[in-house]
């Protein structure tokens, strides 16, 4: 997985674990909202989504709307918290049958299903959908490389060639996928946005300007890049478990200034803003518009990577000193208070999360122990060692880098900050030639599975460029554990073992986690915020829940 790219761009997988209100039970999709039916709303996005094509979209800005336009074979329950991480059938009739060896997945396409333009959905469309992801060299192509024949398809260069490991029978609607090796995460892969069904006639090129029809409660009826795109309700849509939506039209406008967006939401010219309001206006919004604003935790982990392959972080004691000194609450102020302190790699809300009561370096809600950390640095003989801290210039990252650099200096190291442009940050720290000692990292998962987090401490993922494991963590016990657990198809059965690996990584101080980011929902006064603002743990604000008063 191109993990660090994900962490850069995939705020896509933001999640809500404990958001208030909204009246969702999670069990019954229709209960997600009970507001007025119909009407039009306007949404603000800070920038044009990376793509309005399910094969290529790989950011929060695009996954949030595309989730209600392109339904994959499986999808997630339209519910908040952990219930929202439950896999449910989407275009498939039921969850896939998995062979005893864990290498073959079989599902059937629902009968009578049609795309938004009326074209019948066929089983063979799935192969075309996967071929587009591979052929367009999408960021999500790595997810499908475990399918038998996918590598050959990719290297063959013929878009119309067959992917040997996918058999589709249009008469029965059956799709069989053969994997090269057992992969317990593959059901989740079948629920990613990349697997969203598109018709077999969809060209092998970016369709952002003319998005293809999909199977979903909404369709994209117009797209003017960098200006606006429009989602309209598909009245004929009917898949059990997926809500049909309330508002008829959702127009998303690109408004570069978050400040203007917030002002317009306050004034009612906009109904919802995708990004959080600027820190400057948050206090005012919380004070005066608390009835239509909420903050919710995401399935994210923010941490400092500690490169254990080069000094001084090759010494466990130095890594422990960093973990001991960190003050998550101090960093939370750089997030405008929207950071939940944590001490584990797998965040709360994902099965396999280690209980924070077991934090070996103290309660993450309490200040760090700088004095003890200084002593540890001295005992390790690392006092005065030069350290370069890497940070990028994205929102608040430079400030976090400054805090971290100052902290390292305070505990006795000789640290200096190096700020890299956000566009090349992960490539830079993921390049072995950079020899990045430590710096900022964050992870938003592609799907709700601990495996996606663990690749950052999986020694087998280390590579000279685009390294998803910038700390070069290479612990044989952890590597072996990940390899074994990832084959297990039932996540609940091995969740404790995943948590054990997480605990081991933290005990060894391979990384220094400090929190999970909280995101926001802020709506206009005309929206029924109380009943219609469901936040999904992976896809953020659920557009099918939106409704007017």
């Amino acid at each position: 997985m191109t993990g660090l790219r994900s962490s850069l761009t995939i705020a896509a997988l933001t999640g809500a674990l404990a958001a208030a209100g909204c009246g969702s039970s999670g069990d019954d999709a229709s209960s997600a909202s009970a507001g007025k039916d119909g009407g039009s709303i306007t949404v603000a996005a800070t920038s044009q989504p990376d793509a309005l094509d399910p094969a290529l979209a790989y950011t929060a800005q695009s996954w949030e709307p595309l989730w209600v336009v392109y339904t994959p074979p499986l999808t997630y329950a339209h519910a908040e918290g952990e219930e929202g991480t439950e896999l449910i059938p989407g275009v498939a009739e039921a969850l896939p049958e998995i062979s005893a060896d864990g290498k073959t997945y079989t599902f059937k396409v629902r009968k009578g299903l049609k795309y938004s333009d009326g074209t019948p959905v066929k089983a063979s469309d799935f192969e075309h959908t996967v071929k587009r992801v591979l052929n367009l060299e999408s960021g999500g192509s790595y997810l499908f490389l475990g399918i038998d024949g996918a590598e050959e398809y990719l290297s063959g260069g013929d878009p119309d060639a067959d992917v040997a490991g996918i058999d589709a029978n249009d008469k029965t609607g059956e799709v069989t996928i053969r994997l090269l090796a057992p992969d317990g995460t593959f059901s989740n892969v079948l629920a990613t946005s990349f697997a969203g069904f598109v018709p077999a006639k969809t060209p092998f090129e970016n369709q952002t300007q003319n998005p293809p029809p999909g199977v979903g409660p909404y369709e994209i009826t117009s797209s003017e890049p960098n200006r606006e795109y429009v989602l309209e309700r598909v009245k004929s849509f009917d898949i059990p478990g997926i809500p049909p939506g309330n508002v008829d039209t959702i127009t998303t406008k690109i408004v570069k200034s978050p400040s203007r967006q917030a002002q317009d939401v306050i004034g009612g010219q906009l109904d919802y803003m995708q990004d959080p309001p600027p820190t400057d206006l948050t206090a005012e919004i919380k004070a005066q518009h608390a009835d239509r604003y909420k903050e919710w935790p995401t399935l994210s982990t923010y941490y400092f990577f500690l490169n254990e392959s080069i000094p001084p972080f090759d010494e466990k004691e130095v890594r422990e000193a960093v973990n001991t000194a960190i003050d998550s609450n101090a960093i939370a102020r750089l997030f405008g208070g929207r950071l939940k302190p944590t001490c584990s790699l797998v965040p709360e809300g994902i099965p396999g999360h280690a209980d924070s009561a077991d934090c070996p370096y103290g309660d993450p809600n309490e200040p760090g122990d700088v004095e003890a950390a200084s002593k540890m640095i001295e005992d390790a003989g690392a006092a005065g060692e030069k350290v370069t801290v890497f940070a990028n210039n994205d929102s608040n990252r430079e400030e976090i880098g400054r805090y971290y650099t100052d902290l390292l200096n305070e505990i006795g190291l000789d640290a200096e900050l190096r700020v890299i442009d956000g566009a090349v940050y992960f490539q830079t720290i993921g390049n072995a030639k950079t020899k990045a000692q430590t710096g900022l990292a964050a992870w938003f998962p592609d799907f709700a599975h601990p495996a996606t987090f663990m690749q950052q401490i999986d020694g087998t993922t280390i590579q000279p460029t685009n390294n998803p494991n910038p700390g070069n963590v290479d612990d044989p016990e952890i590597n072996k554990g990940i390899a074994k657990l990832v084959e297990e198809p039932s996540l609940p059965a091995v969740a404790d073992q995943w948590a054990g690996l997480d605990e081991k990584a933290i005990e060894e101080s391979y990384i220094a986690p400090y929190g999970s980011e909280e995101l926001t929902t802020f709506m206009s006064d005309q929206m029924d915020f109380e009943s219609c603002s469901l936040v999904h743990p992976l896809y953020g604000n659920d557009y099918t829940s939106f409704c007017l008063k």
Partner: protein
Amino acid sequence: MRAGTGPWRLALRRLRRDRVSLVFGGLFVALVVLAIAAPLWASVAGRGWEENNLTGKIESGGEQVDVVTPEGIPIGPQWRGEYFLGADANGRDVAVQLLYAMRNSLLIGLAAALLTTVLATLTGLIAGWYRGWVDALARSSLDVLWAFPVILLGVALGTSLAIGGLQVGPVTIGPGSVLIPILIIGVVFVPYMARPLRGRVLALREQEFVEAARAQGAGSWRIMSSELLPNIASTVIVFAPLMVANAIMLEAALSFLGVGVDPSLGSMINEGIERLITAPHLTIVPGLMLVLTVLALNVFGDGVRDAFDPRTEVRVGR
């Protein structure tokens, strides 16, 4: 018979009479003194410019208040030693940071202007004196440099050097070093000064005193250093304060765009923009300091120009 007053003495006398220029010249000197005194103020404030204080509290209006609130809003000016001009998002003392930023801005501005002056004078002298292919080569190089928008060129160079620094033979300049903006700014402004100097040398080389020197057997370098250089010195002096002002502005612009040094007036303004409503001091204070510095240099520079070369009108930039 009384000896005639020399041009330098005459210029200084004219400058002394220009009170406005002198006041602004004095203001610039005061700003330089303030910047030099940065460590002194840091000791008064009780913290260095890099020192974060995110969860600390200070006494304000008789009660303990957060330096940075849990919502991330920094405290405003306290008008006393500690947090005289308030705190930034990291809880750093803005006044201390401002003085260190001034040091960087002035150091970079002065050094870059010096580098520009040296390079431009050499280029102007050599191109104007030798003419022919030497002049053609120099002129085309200056044209190429001139053709690039200064900010774009600065950003491009700054970004590419930010990761690996600069290595020329045995000399290595680390990323984040003040030498990088000095080199970038010093080089990109060369055409602005070298072109008029070259024109002046082209005119001077045809004058009788140069022909006389040549007739006496003086070589090219001797003529350039003894005859031409003193005659273009007044132009160089007229340019100097304006070059410093422009270098400071460019440095601030580059830092504003994230490719300069830290702390810098530009980076402080950039950081403050996100908190313009709740903490306007973060933008206003460095902005005012930048305006004051550049204004002081420009007005003083105008005075120097009027004093040394009252007939010409020097403008730097496009």
